[in-house]
């Protein structure tokens, strides 16, 4: 691949609409995520944030609008084909492989990336390089002590990290993190976000998060969604000062940014 043109956004959407029956969950969503940036997507419960990730990754099909990855129109691509091109997500609710060990899970993702997962005539030990790479990813997330444990035996916080490990194993260009710290105690959540902040700058990240302290610390830009539409987007300072945001979001008894 040639050197990526920095002016092409890593990911963008153009007037994406989606309704479930009469419930409109996405109204003319147009957003742009430049390469290497860390954007936050915030908004009250039910605003349509997860739905937007589902639309971008192809788990839902939009009623209208287009989705572009690095300049290519991917609107009609299947979810796995989008992952192959580098658009990868994690899940708000753990979506893991309960009876596979952590190592097996991540090895699987690597085998899929390398195109080894269709091979049925060779034993897994022949693919120990995939497993060693998986072990490296687990180590970088401090998960190596539980690498050989079945996923369902992992502590909740470790399972949240495994969510990220699985995504990293696919070598993403764009990473969509749906409340990566959901359910994690406050102290651990900022630790988890430090891990995310340290990820390679070659990866553009859009993360959903409710904790405003975390959002203001890690995001270079913030997109506010309300009722299926983008209310406003701007730098953390602009968002903190915006009266509309205060009203619909920060005003609802949330800890405002100091």
């Amino acid at each position, binding site marked *: 691949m040639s050197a990526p043109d920095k002016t092409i956004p890593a990911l963008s959407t153009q007037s994406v609409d989606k309704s479930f029956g009469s419930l409109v969950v996405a109204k003319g969503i147009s957003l742009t995520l430049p390469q290497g940036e860390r954007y936050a997507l915030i908004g009250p419960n039910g605003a349509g944030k997860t739905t937007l990730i589902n639309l971008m990754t192809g*788990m839902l099909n939009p009623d209208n609008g287009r989705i572009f990855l690095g300049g290519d129109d991917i609107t009609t691509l299947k979810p796995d084909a989008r*992952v192959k091109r580098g658009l990868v997500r994690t899940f708000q609710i753990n*979506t893991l492989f309960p009876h596979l060990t952590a190592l097996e899970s991540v090895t699987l993702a690597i085998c899929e990336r390398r195109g080894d*997962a269709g091979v049925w005539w060779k034993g897994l030990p022949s693919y120990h390089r995939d497993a060693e790479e998986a072990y490296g990813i687990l180590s970088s997330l401090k998960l190596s002590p539980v690498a050989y444990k079945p996923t369902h035996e992992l502590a909740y916080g470790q399972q949240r990290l495994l969510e990220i490990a699985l995504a990293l194993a696919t070598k993403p260009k764009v990473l969509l993190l749906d409340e990566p710290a959901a359910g994690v105690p406050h102290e651990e959540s900022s630790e988890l976000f430090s891990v995310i902040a340290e990820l390679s700058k070659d990866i553009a990240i859009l993360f959903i998060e409710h904790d405003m302290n975390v959002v203001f610390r890690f995001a270079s830009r913030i997109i506010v969604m309300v009722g299926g539409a983008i209310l406003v987007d701007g730098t953390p300072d602009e968002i903190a000062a915006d009266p509309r945001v205060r009203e619909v979001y920060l005003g609802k008894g949330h800890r405002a940014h100091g």
Partner: protein
Amino acid sequence: MSLTTDPVSGPYQYLKAQSRWRVLEVAFWLCTLLPYFLFPNYLVLASQIAITALFALSLDLILGYAGIVSLGHAAFFGLGAYAAGILSKHGWGEPITGLIVGGVIAALVGYASSFIISRFRHLTLIMITLGLGLLLHEAANSAHFLTGGADGLQGVKIWKIFGLYGFDLWGYTAYTYSLIVLFLGFLLARRITNSPFGLALRGIRENAVRMPAIGAPSHAHIRKIYTISAAMAGVAGALLAQTTETVALEVLSFQRSADTLVMLVLGGAGMLYGGIVGSAIFMIARDQFSGINPQYWYFWIGLLLIVVVMVLPNGVLGGLKKLFTTWRGPS
């Protein structure tokens, strides 16, 4: 500590340990030779068990590993049986090529239907497989000129294996032949389940939603294993046709699909040996009980099934494994 968490020094050693042959496995296969010495009068039954075990193993590949529940898997067993039977009736009774033809025909139909199978899950999938099974059963019933319909396919004549070993009345050749084919099928299944592809299948079983999100083409994986499984079922069917030198309409029946599912669940799905153990329990019990009281046979199987799924969710083998693990050391 469980059996699988022996101290491991790294990912490579871990993978090696996972796919290593265990002592119990070797012992198990040695036990399959016991009928020659202990029950020489039951070799015919033993060969039927081996054939059913191969069929159950083929079902385990899709059910136990990829999580595809089928109530119509006899479709492929029957296709293989009729293919081998009809081939021999029309003058080609060579057994090995007959097995291959049976497997290939079943694989072709399996591949064609896999495009539908891979799109559905849960109840829809069960109904589709059931429908496919019923469809083939009726087709074979009406194609009297080809299959003999409800009268069964007569005039099957199988040549000596390698021109040397003819099928005898005591089932000596039949058992040896079936056991060897079962073992080869088992080696294939074992290799598949220990491969990267086998890991992907377990991924589908464990979480079909996550698979596309790690870039996995689940549909292609399902099509592949369904075709392999159909081929194996077809070989099992061909074995039955060859060793019994007849093909009854029953090979395609719903009863056969359901019985095999019961055997697999009894033995324990997703463990390769579950189907084999389940077939042995089921068929030996049927042989013994139906002699005493034929009409009540399914009463006992029903009871056994309910008790096993309630007490031992991973089947008899799963229960034994758990027992063994706790006995090995407190965890």
